[in-house]
């Protein structure tokens, strides 16, 4: 009964979304306030109806109602409660419902926080938002009903893929979707602005915080997925340029570019049509990711079970949403009034350079991801594009970007002084060079990869460049220290946000470089009592025992690890065999230190009476996670800036009093 209520609520939501997608739009073009105002109650009704539907599916999972086919195929009574809940989005149908739920939440947020928005822009944006909802509701109702019943119900379900039974991964999809769907906000407002033919500072002030929020979620989601791959898949790596990883990375790149170009729109009234294009692209790439995962056109470890009917449907959705938007863009963008002019060497110029490099980066990732499909479709044979392509094409693009990231913030708006900026960065440049040389010498010259020195130098350059900018702002060393501190306290939070995020990226680059360049790995058959030394850590295999988990059995190895003769840690990696569905997984044991992760994996018994063990030392890995956390935190700090607070925008003198900044 509850499942049927959930299904019915979805159908009602479709009807409501159809109303919201049309009436307010017509109202806006006719200037009919009543019709426009309809977007408020309809978006509230949608969030309620879709919320009911989501709750109904959640109920089916929590109570293990196996008469619902989706539950029977993806859950099991023995599963811990956390994974029963996470099982809701661990499959195609449920994750789609989560997608729609988040979409409805964002639409509702416009109604909730957007009281100060001009009614025309708001109702048009909500209508566009509802069009997306209509598309996805049709998709779920016509091809992927999560509430389909099973007659007769099985006694127990077939369980969730054990790889997904992990706390890190339980929250990976919701965060990722908050990011993907969060870009729908920028998208809907971009389309609304194209319809209105007007993009101004108020538009950017509204779009910026939402884009930032989406960016924060997406960054968290990608990092969580990558962290999971690192500790769960047991291969000691954290990124593989898998098509689905790329599918989340491309919107991240476009979103990062959007974030920066929206600043230019807000402050300088320039780069408008480019910003609109990025807003469409960021969400378009999110949709593309959805298509890639669910249509089966690309092979990936992440892909859901595929079905050609679904593929055709999403492709149709993609063509209408992205193709339609780009067409609208082609027709309307040339009519957008261009605003402030700027010299190539200026803050705007630096941001534009960043944008071009980000967009090119996203383009190369797209090309690499889709190349196997292109080759196959053109009968050029079956190819796969792997890390070598991306590392050799994408990473070099990021070098000028990081260099520019050091300089850009020191340039002033409109017309910057490159020579002046560079002279202030002298110290940063010299220290970066020294670090690069020291790195080169320390790794024994060409014994290590050449790019390791470059990577470490770039990280230091970015960190010091960012700190230089902070010192400039506070006039450090030029006025008394007390006064500098006072200035530091008065810095807007948005400035802190930038400093933290850029510094976070610097820390991340250092971690990424070190962990890729100087990883030490040792794979061997190890007997009980035998000691293997990796990067100065001596691993003695003490025991391998069988242990029993709630829905798996595992053989657990116990290593005693010493460093320089002193006790370091006892590490207990496991090799698990899940019962339902039957599948082996590895649980690596990781001891994190400031300088690197000590990482151990135990495998099957080998023929000589030992066990296959894989032992790694992964340098500076924790720096990557810490750097990412700094970026996320920086985003949050920037979000808390009064000027960025969601709901703050006003289209200054015309509609509302200029002082009403608070929502």
């Amino acid at each position, binding site marked *: 009964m509850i499942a049927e209520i959930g299904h019915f609520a979805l159908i009602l939501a479709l009807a409501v979304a159809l109303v919201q997608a049309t009436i307010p739009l017509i109202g806006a073009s006719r200037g009919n306030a009543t019709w426009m105002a309809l977007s408020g109650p309809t978006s509230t009704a949608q969030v309620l109806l879709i919320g009911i539907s989501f709750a109904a599916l959640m109920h089916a999972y929590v109570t293990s109602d196996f008469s619902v086919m989706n539950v029977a195929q993806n859950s099991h009574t023995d599963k811990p409660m956390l994974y029963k809940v996470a099982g809701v989005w661990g499959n195609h149908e449920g994750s789609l419902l989560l997608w729609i739920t988040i979409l409805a939440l964002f639409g509702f947020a416009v109604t909730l926080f957007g009281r100060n928005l001009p009614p025309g822009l708001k109702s048009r944006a909500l209508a566009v938002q509802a069009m997306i909802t209509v598309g996805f509701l049709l998709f779920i109702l016509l091809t992927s009903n999560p509430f389909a019943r099973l007659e007769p119900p099985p006694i127990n379900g077939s369980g969730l893929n054990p790889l997904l039974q992990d706390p890190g991964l339980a929250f990976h999809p919701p965060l990722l979707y908050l990011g993907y769907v969060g870009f729908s906000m920028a998208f809907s407002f971009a389309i609304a602005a194209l319809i209105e033919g007007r993009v101004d500072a108020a538009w950017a002030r509204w779009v910026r915080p939402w884009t930032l929020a989406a960016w924060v979620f997406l960054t968290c989601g990608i990092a969580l997925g990558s962290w999971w791959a690192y500790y769960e898949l047991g291969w000691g790596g954290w990124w593989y340029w898998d098509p689905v990883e790329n599918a989340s990375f491309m919107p991240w790149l476009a979103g990062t570019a959007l974030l920066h170009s929206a600043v230019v729109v807000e402050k300088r009234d320039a780069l408008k049509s480019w910003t609109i294009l990025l807003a469409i692209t960021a969400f378009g790439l999110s949709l593309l990711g959805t298509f890639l995962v669910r249509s089966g056109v690309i092979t990936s470890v992440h892909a859901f079970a595929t079905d050609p009917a679904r593929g055709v449907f999403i492709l149709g959705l993609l063509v209408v949403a992205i193709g339609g938007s780009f067409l609208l863009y082609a027709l309307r963008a040339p009519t957008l009034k261009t605003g402030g002019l700027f010299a190539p060497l200026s803050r705007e110029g630096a941001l534009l350079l960043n944008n071009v490099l980000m967009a090119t980066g996203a383009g190369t990732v797209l090309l690499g991801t889709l190349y196997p499909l292109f080759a*196959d479709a053109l009968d050029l044979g079956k190819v796969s594009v792997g890390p070598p392509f991306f590392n050799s094409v994408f990473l070099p693009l990021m070098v000028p970007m990081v260099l520019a990231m050091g300089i850009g913030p020191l340039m002033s708006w409109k017309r910057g002084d490159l020579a002046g900026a560079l002279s202030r960065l002298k110290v940063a440049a010299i220290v970066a060079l020294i670090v690069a040389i020291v790195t080169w010498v320390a790794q024994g010259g060409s014994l290590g990869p050449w790019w390791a020195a470059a990577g470490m130098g770039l990280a230091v350059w970015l960190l010091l460049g960012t700190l230089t900018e902070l010192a400039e702002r506070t006039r450090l060393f030029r006025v008394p220290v007390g006064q500098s501190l006072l200035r530091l306290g008065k810095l807007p939070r948005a400035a802190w946000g930038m400093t933290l995020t850029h510094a976070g990226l610097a820390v991340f680059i250092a971690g990424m470089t070190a962990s890729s360049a100087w990883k030490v790995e040792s794979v061997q058959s190890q007997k009980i009592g035998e000691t293997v030394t990796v990067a100065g850590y001596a691993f003695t295999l003490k025991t391998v025992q069988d242990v029993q988990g709630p829905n798996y059995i595992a053989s657990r190895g116990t290593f005693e690890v010493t460093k320089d003769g002193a006790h370091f840690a006892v590490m207990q990696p496991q090799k698990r065999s899940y019962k339902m569905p039957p599948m082996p997984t590895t649980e690596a044991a990781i001891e994190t230190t400031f300088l690197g992760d000590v990482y151990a994996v135990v495998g099957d018994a080998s023929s000589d009476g030992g066990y296959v063990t894989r032992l790694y030392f992964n340098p500076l890995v924790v720096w990557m996670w810490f750097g990412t956390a700094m970026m996320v935190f920086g985003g949050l700090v920037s979000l808390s800036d009064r000027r960025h607070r969601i709901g703050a925008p006003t289209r200054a003198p015309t509609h509302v009093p200029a002082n009403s900044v608070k929502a």
Partner: protein
Amino acid sequence: MRRLLYLLPVAVFGIIALFFLRGLTLNPREIPSVLINRPVPEMNLAPLPGRGENTGLATADLKGRVSLVNIYGSWCIACVQEHPYLVQIKKQGIVPIHGIDWRDDPVEGAKWLQKHGDPYDRVGIDPAPGRTAVDFGVTGAPETFIVDKAGLIRYKHIGPVTPETWDKVLLPIIKELNK
């Protein structure tokens, strides 16, 4: 000219969309075997240790009956996943299954069968670098070939055999060949 520039995004997207449309009808996992409808490559593989004399796999063993040739290795995780199902198929007695222990330590390969069950009539070893598997056009393990009565390769399945692929793909082909 400037207007044309604004058309670029929709044009690029249009091209990508066309490729997607084509892509929906292709299966990226299906790698065509150049050996389909060709004779099984020449081979005479030694048996697994402890499995008895004359249990190895040679080209001549694949003639006279429709049979499956399954590529496995004790190092292969996906093989663990498909293996119980192969054991079940063996019990049904529809078709003999032969194994090739690929790029493996033969002792490990034999132990692995003791642990997970032995569905094979014959098992040949093809230690690294695995010349016979290359002749078969193997891209990874597990892979399963259907060989007809004349010793011609008629189908190649990449990845684990699941109940679904068995019912929908492999079994119909075997029935057809058995007619």
